[in-house]
């Protein structure tokens, strides 16, 4: 596609429920990143994938958070037993080895609200 897409754009859930967020990177981009942005704050790194290598999960805040990516395609971020503090915008970005400087292209984000 023309850019990074994310779905859903908005998600409202009840505390304790599981949610799944989806990211479609730009075709051919081998690297994919997930970030969290709480209201009024900067971006918080969560996880990144590089091709078929083991992902860097060092930013995941707890074991309730997990993410998967198959090859160089779609990624899903799963939050289990959601808490109110999980409310945030979740941003996905992808980048390409062929792009000088490793520029990240960001999706529009998924706004998650946990009631």
């Amino acid at each position: 596609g023309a850019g990074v897409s994310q779905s859903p754009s908005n998600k409202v859930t009840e505390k304790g429920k599981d949610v799944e967020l989806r990211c479609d990177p730009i075709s051919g981009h081998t690297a994919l990143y997930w970030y969290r942005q709480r209201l009024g704050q900067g971006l918080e790194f969560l996880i990144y994938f590089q091709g078929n290598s083991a992902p860097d999960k060092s930013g995941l805040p707890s074991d309730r958070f997990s993410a998967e990516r198959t090859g160089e395609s779609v990624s899903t971020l799963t939050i289990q037993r959601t808490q109110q503090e999980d409310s945030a915008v979740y941003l996905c970005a992808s980048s390409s080895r062929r792009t000088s400087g490793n520029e990240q292209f960001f999706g529009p984000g998924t706004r998650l609200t946990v009631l």
Partner: protein
Amino acid sequence: AQSVTQLDSHVSVSEGTPVLLRCNYSSSYSPSLFWYVQHPNKGLQLLLKYTSAATLVKGINGFEAEFKKSETSFHLTKPSAHMSDAAEYFCVVSLSPYNFNKFYFGSGTKLNVKP
């Protein structure tokens, strides 16, 4: 270790006056440096990037940034602010253009432009 510091959380200027948003970084390697802009309720957009070519980098919408290795700075400037420049700006550093790694985001600077 590497990190990025945005020295001002808020900057307020009058329309038509110069803009200066400050960013300092620390890195053990030659960094790639980026500035991203985030308008309210919109996605992140790349303004400009430095990847070891010219130290003065020109970006979109009249913005520029100068890489100063001796000062470990990458300040963002614009000669004349427009109302449409009101947004949040993030300075970002990555390890190398050719290695996939985490991107380190500054905490952001909110630019307010007064009429």
